[in-house]
């Protein structure tokens, strides 16, 4: 096992190199660059960008150097923990991201947790009570969660949460707590605001998860080994969880690695609509304004997490199913 992990970690290096090169290339693909967007945006507000300043900044950020050189500077910096400089914020990327990361992790973590806590029981219930009224009802609610665009849900929720409960619109806390050190009141405010994003971001995910669990479980419920388990006298719940459910989790485990990147990336578009102080909107904004290093470093960080996540999910898959562990490596 250890050898396997070591080998996989070695393979990560070329993967990440390729990924970083691709990210860098793709970031260069749009015909314009950060400064052009910047100038254009200033102009949209009637302001004029100081062209000599733009020239100054371009030089500062090494835009006069050849692409390859910039790439290598970036990648080597990344390895040393220097993630580059954000054009837009004019400060090191790590400083820009730093603050938001904690909140992002909080929101994503709660969301994922909620998704699982809700989706598993419902999925199992739906599968074991297929075509009962409850199954139909839960299906319906779940599908609405998938079908209604998040931004609409978000708007509606926020508006009525404001009108009815007096919650401030958008954001993860009352504005007065911004920039303040963590305190009990601040934590309370965060908790009071957390449920809307968690609910909205989680709605679609939960719905999908319920459907997937239900479908996968239905397949396993008929298998003979489940009968065996019942014949042993296992209580149905336990038998269900230990045998068919475990087998049906294959799909789930194969995606579990995605949790890692998604925990720090924060659901972008929804977070924007909800005006969350998470990394999602930051990344989106950086991508749109072509704030290369901010976006690039963040993406590369995400892809590191993806790669690690894939590894984790592969290891877990092996544990879940010894057939994969003991025979999966072989080529047919």
């Amino acid at each position: 096992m250890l050898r396997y992990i070591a080998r996989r970690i070695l393979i990560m290096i070329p993967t990440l190199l390729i990924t970083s090169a691709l990210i860098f290339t793709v970031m260069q693909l749009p015909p314009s660059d950060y400064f052009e967007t910047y100038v254009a945006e200033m102009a949209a507000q009637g302001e004029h960008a100081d062209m000599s300043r733009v020239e100054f900044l371009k030089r500062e950020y090494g835009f006069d150097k050849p692409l390859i050189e910039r790439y290598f500077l970036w990648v080597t910096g990344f390895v040393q923990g220097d993630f580059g400089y954000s054009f837009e914020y004019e400060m090191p990327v790590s400083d820009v991201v730093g603050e938001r990361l904690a909140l992002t992790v909080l929101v994503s973590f709660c969301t994922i947790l909620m998704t699982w806590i809700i989706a598993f029981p419902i999925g199992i219930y739906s599968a074991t009570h297929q075509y009962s009224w409850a199954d139909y009802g839960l299906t319906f609610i779940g599908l609405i969660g998938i079908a209604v665009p998040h931004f609409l849900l978000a708007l509606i929720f926020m508006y009525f949460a404001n009108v009815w409960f007096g919650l401030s619109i958008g954001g993860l806390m009352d504005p007065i707590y911004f920039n303040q050190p963590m305190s009990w009141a601040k934590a309370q405010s965060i908790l009071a605001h957390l449920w809307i994003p968690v609910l909205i971001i989680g709605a679609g995910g939960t719905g999908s998860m319920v459907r997937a669990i239900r479908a996968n479980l239905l397949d396993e419920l008929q298998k003979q080994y489940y009968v065996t388990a019942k014949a042993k006298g296992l209580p149905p719940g336990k038998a269900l969880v230990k045998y068919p459910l475990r087998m049906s989790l294959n799909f789930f485990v194969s995606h579990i690695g995605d949790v890692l990147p998604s925990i720090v990336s924060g659901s972008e578009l929804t977070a924007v609509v909800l005006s969350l102080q998470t990394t999602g909107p930051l990344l989106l904004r950086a991508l749109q304004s072509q704030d290369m290093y901010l976006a690039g470093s963040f993406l590369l960080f995400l892809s590191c997490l993806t790669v690690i996540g894939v590894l984790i999910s592969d290891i877990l898959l092996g544990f879940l199913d010894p057939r994969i562990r003991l025979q999966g490596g072989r080529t047919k």
Partner: protein
Amino acid sequence: MNQPVALPPSGTPLPHYVAGGAFDPYQADKLTKAQERVYLASQLTLMWWKFRKHRLAVASGVFLILLYGSILISEFLAPYNYQVRHTDFIRTPPQSVHFFHEGQFVGPFTYGLTSTLDMTSLKRNYAENTQQIFPVRFFCRGDGYRFWGLFEGNLHLVCPGEGGTLFLLGTDRLGRDMLSRIIYGARISLTIGLIGIAVSFTLGIVIGGLAGYYGGLFDLLVQRTIEVVQSLPTIPLWLALSAIMPPSWSPILVYFGITVILGLMDWTGLARAVRSKLLSLREDDYVVAAQLMGAGTPRVVFRHLVPGFLSHLIASATIAIPSMILGETALSFLGLGLRPPITSWGVMLNEAQNINIVVLYPWLILPVVPVIAVILAFNFLGDGLRDAADPYR
């Protein structure tokens, strides 16, 4: 049939019992021709027979067929031409159809609308004018249109009474009939997005299937590719694409292109799920059996292994559909999706992405209703298909 034998009380020895009656080992064997047809029916036919029993699925199927049928004749079904503006009826709330006027049956009709402009709140208020009665007409001449952009027509299924209005779902900010826009919008919403699904599903199943089946080096390569693809930032890609898309391309074509590319990037999740499932299934005896018969890889993967995963595939397809129908919403966020005058449900909902509308003009959110309906229908259809393909039912 024999009468059940009474068992002796426990403790006493079992008496020797011999069943009476004739014994014919060949009894009931031969098949009639008609029976043979039934028993030799192909698996698809069998599935169809099973599917028919699933009433909700059949209803959903019919609903979808009707819906897809409707996009062939949207122009005829819509009471108005979706582009025609009614400057006097901007943001009219949904109008109701009445049948009785002052207690008297008149048949379906609408009252006239009078609008007043509230200059302090800058809002248009509409009131029914019960003096004016406009009976709804059927199979009637109304707004002109070009049927599929080819030839002129003006026949509609329903039209407002002469001089009246029939805004069943209200009008939007330019005074266009919402119902008509929804009916036209189905054309794009029900077609283009699904192509993306098709692309990503095909790729996901094929690539994931092969990786899971072959394992080893191929699997390794595929997995690394997946990691790389998942890491690719889409937004700069779109930005670049939107810059290089020829300006002469129509927005639909551009959108179509983007959907396909979206599909090309979106296969990874499914591929991983398929792969890991196949990794555990591929050692089963029936796979070996198929190989021993000389079945090639495609056959083993798609005939034997993937069907074992069908439930998941169907479920993920139904889950993916909404994101594709509404795909343009996310894209228009970046200025890349469809835009007016092209109408789709996503475009309409995108226009509704506004606090004003949620609070003041909620009927503009109505396009979610068809979206939900379609998704429910696809879902129940999927359920039906799943069950039809399920050997255990």
